[in-house]
């Protein structure tokens, strides 16, 4: 009895995916819940497992094919897993990989180099895999984005020294999508950035003083800066609802909630998981969520729901050493706050020169919606809340 393996139901915002990697070939035995295939969408890699045990009978989609929501990918012939049946039940050399022909020398080379032929896209007639395809294949090529693979896309940048070589690598779907979105933001918004600086000493003092108690009280969650920044942002957004709004056609949509996106950098690119209803979250909860998101992002396990929406974003280039930058908007949001490196600088305080831990803040905003005055005042509000955290508590 044949069972269909289908692509999962995609969330509304996702139109289509690309079949990234087959982990099993036609003819392989599979067990229930065993990982069969990865599908890459704009934001995440979806894993598809076998719904039942049996033999993978028909493979209908090849790597690189477009896969729609719920599309049938393959069929399993149900049956008990036959233990240790020889994989090559064919009499002649196994030159077929999931229905794709493989030239003899290509198979030989792939065997010698331990390359999984199912990961190669054939460029020969009718999609045949040629020796050239195997020679040109490197596991660092972005066609295998599953986080389980240890090699990441950018580590293989070793080029022979002294030669003017070039390496051409197709963009991953994610990178293409990021590229498209950023271009469209640049072209469709009137983005400007306003700057300010914040004296972090109060916040750092708070952290130092209460870190141990906080950690003990909140089950090991550490008090970082993000928790307080998110709280400050929420408070400022309440006072400047325009910064929390977005443009939809000719309408301005004011959101009655604050979903704060927190940018996390991963090997595959920047992802922005969202803290929903951050206005209702305690600082501990915020810290927890951020920490859990960061872990998931690194493992490539963020869901699409977790990354959708958001009314405002906070990004922190400071962890990489950035002193000042102009963050780019995360559409359809109208503003984004950029945090930077904390640097001890001499400041003039009450006529004296003192050394303070300073951080530059940047607020990029869409001028179509937010005027300079509002943007500046919003950023000033954030600065004041950070410099005097009591204000957050007292909502002043």
């Amino acid at each position, binding site marked *: 009895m044949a069972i269909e393996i289908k692509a999962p139901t995609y969330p509304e915002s996702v139109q289509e995916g690309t079949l990234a990697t087959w982990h099993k070939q036609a003819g392989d035995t599979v067990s229930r819940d065993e990982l069969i295939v990865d599908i890459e969408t704009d934001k995440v890699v979806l894993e598809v497992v076998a719904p039942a045990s049996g033999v993978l009978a028909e493979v209908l989609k090849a790597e690189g094919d477009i896969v729609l929501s719920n599309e049938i990918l393959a069929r399993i012939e149900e049956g008990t897993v036959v233990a240790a049946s020889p994989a090559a039940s064919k009499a002649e050399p196994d030159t077929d990989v999931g229905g794709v022909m493989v030239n003899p*020398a290509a198979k030989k080379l792939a065997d010698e180099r331990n390359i999984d032929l199912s990961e190669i896209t054939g460029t020969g*007639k009718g999609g045949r895999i040629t020796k050239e395809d195997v020679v040109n294949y490197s596991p660092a090529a972005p066609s295998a984005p599953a986080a389980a693979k240890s090699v990441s896309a950018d580590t293989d940048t070793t080029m022979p020294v002294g030669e003017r070589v070039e390496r051409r690598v197709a963009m991953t779907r994610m990178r293409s999508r990021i590229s498209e979105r950023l271009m469209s933001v640049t072209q469709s918004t009137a983005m400007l950035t306003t700057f300010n600086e914040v004296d972090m000493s109060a916040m750092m003092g708070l952290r130092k003083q209460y870190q141990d108690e906080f950690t003990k009280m909140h089950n090991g969650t550490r008090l970082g800066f993000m928790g307080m920044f998110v709280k400050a942002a929420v408070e400022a957004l309440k006072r400047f609802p325009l910064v929390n709004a977005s443009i939809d056609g000719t309408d301005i949509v004011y959101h009655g909630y604050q979903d704060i996106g927190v940018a996390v950098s991963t090997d595959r690119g920047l992802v922005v998981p969202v803290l929903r209803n951050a206005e209702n979250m305690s600082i501990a909860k915020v810290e927890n969520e951020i920490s859990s998101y960061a872990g998931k992002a690194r493992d490539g396990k963020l869901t699409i729901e977790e990354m959708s929406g958001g009314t405002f974003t906070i990004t922190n280039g400071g962890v990489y050493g950035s002193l000042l930058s102009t963050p780019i908007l995360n559409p359809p949001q109208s503003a984004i706050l950029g945090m930077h490196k904390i640097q001890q600088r001499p400041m003039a305080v009450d006529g004296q020169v003192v050394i303070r831990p300073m951080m530059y803040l940047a607020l990029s905003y869409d001028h179509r919606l937010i005027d300079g005055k509002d943007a500046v005042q919003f950023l000033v509000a954030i600065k004041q809340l950070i410099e005097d955290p009591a204000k957050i508590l007292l909502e002043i």
Partner: protein
Amino acid sequence: MSEKYDVVVIGSGPAGYVAAIRSAQLGLKTACIEKWKDAKGKGVNGGTCLNVGCIPSKALLDSSYKYHEAAEELAVHGISTKGVTIDIPAMLARKNKIINQLTGGISGLFKANGVTALYGTGRLLAGKKVELTDNDGAVSVIEASNIILASGSVPIAIPVAPVDNDIIVDSTGALEISEVPKRLGVIGAGVIGLELGSVWGRLGSKVVLLEALDDFLAVMDKAVAKESKKIFTKQGLDIRLGARVTGTEVKGKEVEVTYQTADGGELTETFDKLIVCVGRRAFTEGLLAADSGVEVDERGSIFVNDFCATNVPGIFAVGDLVRGPMLAHKGSEEGVMVAERIAGHKAQMNYDIVPNVIYTHPEVASVGQTEEQVKASGESYNVGVFPFAASGRAMAANDTDGMVKIIAHKDTDRILGCHIVGPSAADLTQQVAIAMEFGSSAEDLGMTVFGHPTLSEAVHEAALAVNGSAIHIANRKRR
């Protein structure tokens, strides 16, 4: 009276008749116009190829080779032959019989496929109409949704050696020479010159080929061209390079040819017959009305895109009439591509894998890039060569001149070109052409089992030699 067709083809040479047959197979109402007439004034299909080109020349090449073999090459087998003679009229008659068989065959194929065969001169008018002037002079206009121009090519005439079809002939005349000329001059040592020179040389002519270029077979792979020249010179063909003919003077039954040599000197030579074969040009005389709208390029060929479409929608041109090598099979495949595209298929042609052959003995054939072209492209490559002198089958056949040369990309091992001079070069090259179509690497050919003992094995060994693993010759020290 205006008949309307889906496709009208002007010209029924290998490009035209194939396009017509394919169109009809795809269900299109097709007509094919041909202006060629036989001696009796009857319309004859097949164009240059069948009537005065590929086919008759091959017939004469084979007849003359058999004569040569019988007269000169059988002693080594222990066979003694004396007084071998050849009846030239009989040889020509056999050639003509083959021509008739094939041209008749085309009419038969037209009937079988439902192609309307029209005889007369076709001229493209504006608005996708063709004016047909039939062999009785009656004029009619045919309408078509699509028109394929396939009027082919004609020999290039040079003013210094005007063809009189008596002493000075072109390739067409060379196929009708009625007695073996004692001294034969050939202007142009290209494919046609070598083939025709071979025919009459085998039959007893003393042949001199005058080639204006300094390089022999300049467009071929240099190593193979060099080897070929050695072989042909050994056969008795006197090939003079850098020889530019500046004048000819017919004196009675002979012609005096004056030519400049590479070092600037001037020489004269007298021949009993002179063949002018310096190339061919697209034949567009009377083909296009002034307002047809079709553009002709600076060389007189019809300008087309990669799919043989002219600048006028619905008008196509194929074969010798357009860019690319003037080869019958190239024209035929273009004819197929155009017919299929008209029918809505996404046909296209692979111009990178078109074999070409010189039907001398030994044959010279090639497909893909020459070593010089690969070098110029900057790609690094490996070469594998296998001489027929090391082939058991060639030895048994007493036919050991020549070699197989295969060029492959250094890193990917993809076969980039194959060049062969030797017995059955055409058929052996075709094997490699097929492999190249499938993206074959030299190793793939090396991994294929070849029958033994065959001439094909030379291909196998050359492929192995690319990567230093040939068995039947010492591999060049490389790694």
